[in-house]
């Protein structure tokens, strides 16, 4: 990741701030607070669904494209979901060329692991003709600015984009042995995805003896190890990954999981509320996009 070398004294300042009895991070947050987030869905017109998320300085654009394809032989009766993450060199010059590839694959693996669970997203509904035709959802995540906590931001963006996704209705006509698919022309004749149980990633960074959520870039530099978990609205954990060079005590992993579960539930419910609120505000709203 875009790493600046911070000085010993700066790191000490952050570390002591978290160890305090009443933790005060450098921007005054407590250990379990997220920074301000802003979200907009339907920003890219030529996708099936899209969202843009800004979490403090982190800027993420997600597009979902539904295409017809052949289901995988292992799961002939369900659709597919494919993640692709692109780290734009606009975010940091280090991403130029192939510089961002490692981070991009890391994010997409964690995302696909989170969604690789039948309870997260009903992929069976994406199947049209078993073994022959299904919808494949291509989810493209574009990283436009790095301000720390990329994994959480990416997952929130993905969930919002899936909420916004509209897949055209399909009717199957059977003539003798031939199956014929008819795609609806009506732009309002669409299916939506049920995202009520899809997960958001919560990253807990271990700094000193304590853990924090939503670490800023500076805090990420002080962090020894972090735990990423996909948490659904019900509080179930769909994926878990430890990252970083430090090791974690089993007890602290348990603590972190408890915190992550609690925060994940809050995160999921507030995200869903915001998305519903945005939808209610109807078509009158103008897309703001990248104009501030």
């Amino acid at each position, binding site marked *: 990741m875009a790493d*600046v*070398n*911070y*000085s*010993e*004294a*700066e790191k*000490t*300042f952050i570390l*002591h*701030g978290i*160890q*305090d*009895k*009443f933790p*005060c*991070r*450098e*921007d*005054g*947050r*407590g250990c*379990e*607070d*997220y*920074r*301000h*987030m*802003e*979200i*907009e*869905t339907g920003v890219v017109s030529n996708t099936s669904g899209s969202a843009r998320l800004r979490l*403090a300085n982190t800027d993420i654009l997600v597009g979902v494209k539904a295409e017809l394809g052949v289901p995988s032989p292992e799961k002939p009766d369900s659709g597919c979901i494919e993640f692709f993450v692109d780290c734009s060199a606009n975010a940091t010059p280090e991403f130029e060329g192939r510089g961002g590839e490692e981070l991009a694959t890391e994010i997409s693996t964690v995302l696909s692991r989170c969604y690789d669970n039948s309870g997260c997203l009903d992929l069976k509904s994406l199947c049209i003709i078993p073994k022959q035709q299904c919808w494949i959802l291509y989810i493209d995540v574009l990283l436009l600015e790095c301000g720390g906590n990329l994994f959480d931001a990416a997952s*929130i963006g993905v969930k919002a984009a899936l909420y916004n996704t509209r897949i055209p209705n399909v009717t199957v006509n059977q003539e003798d042995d031939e199956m014929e698919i008819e795609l609806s022309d009506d732009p309002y004749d669409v299916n939506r995805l049920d995202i009520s149980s899809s997960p958001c990633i919560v990253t807990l960074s271990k700094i000193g003896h304590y853990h924090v*959520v939503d670490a800023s870039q500076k805090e990420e530099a002080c962090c020894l190890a972090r735990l990423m978990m996909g948490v659904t609205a019900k509080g179930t954990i769909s994926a878990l990954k430890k990252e970083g060079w430090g090791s974690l005590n089993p007890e602290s992993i348990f603590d972190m999981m408890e*915190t992550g579960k*609690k*925060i994940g539930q*809050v*995160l999921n419910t*507030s*995200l869903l509320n*915001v*998305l519903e*609120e*945005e939808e209610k*505000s109807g078509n009158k*709203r*103008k897309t*703001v996009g990248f104009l501030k």
Partner: protein
Amino acid sequence: MATVDIRFVGARGKKDNIETVEEIQNLVTPGDIITTDTGFMRGHGTFMENEKLHASVAGVVERVNKLICVKPLKTRYNGEIGDVVIGRIIEVCQRRWKVETHSKLNSVLMLSSVNLPGGELRRRSEEDEKLMRHYLKEGDLISAEVQNIMGDGCLSLHTRSLKYGKLGQGTLLSISPSLIKRRKTHFHNLPCGASIILGNNGYVWISPNVNEETDNTGGYEQNLEPVPNDVRIVVARLRNSILALADHHMIIYDTSIMYAYEASLLFTVKDMLKPEVTSEIIDLIQQRMELEGT
């Protein structure tokens, strides 16, 4: 208590639209034709093509007699001799340090233009050269003054005063260099219990109060003791106040920072990250500034 603060963009205050500022005159984007008159001289931020003067940056056109310049709205730091800057050491080289100062090129700090620990003034020996990383290593933050600007625009810095030198515990902010007001002094010990250094290069350093008599050692002795919680909250509040000012494009100097700090006392530090709270704070500051005529 965990808090998650998500909004959708449409819910953003409509206030900005009503309160449209009067349009800035002479605003150009790159490639715009400034004039077709050939009687003018080409200044910074412009180029000549087909006998027409074009802008090469987005900004405001400024004219001094026959010279036309475009002053960019967003820019890297263009150094001037005597400026106070804050920088981060990125490399230790032969007899010099490379320093990142938010300018186009990395600045250099020569071994001969630093005060050695203990304030000795002597020729720098080979011994000193070997100890360079001991004084300042990669990642360290320093405050310095611009000593010279070289032909290619690279800055040469010096720290030959006890007020400059290595920085200890605190928070670094990066804002646009054009928002920092040029003043006689850029070092302030604020009454609220923290001190700030406003670097002309847009870097702002906030740290717990320093005792001027005893602590001005050029920063070679670092105090890594935990900072008390109340001071830490003051530092965080100042950080958020300065960022709020920068977000609303207000000029940053000691008075505006103190006004922002005092206006922010109505809210908790954490709430200052929310946009509606910052705009309220900014309103309060603007009212107070009009009232006091500053």
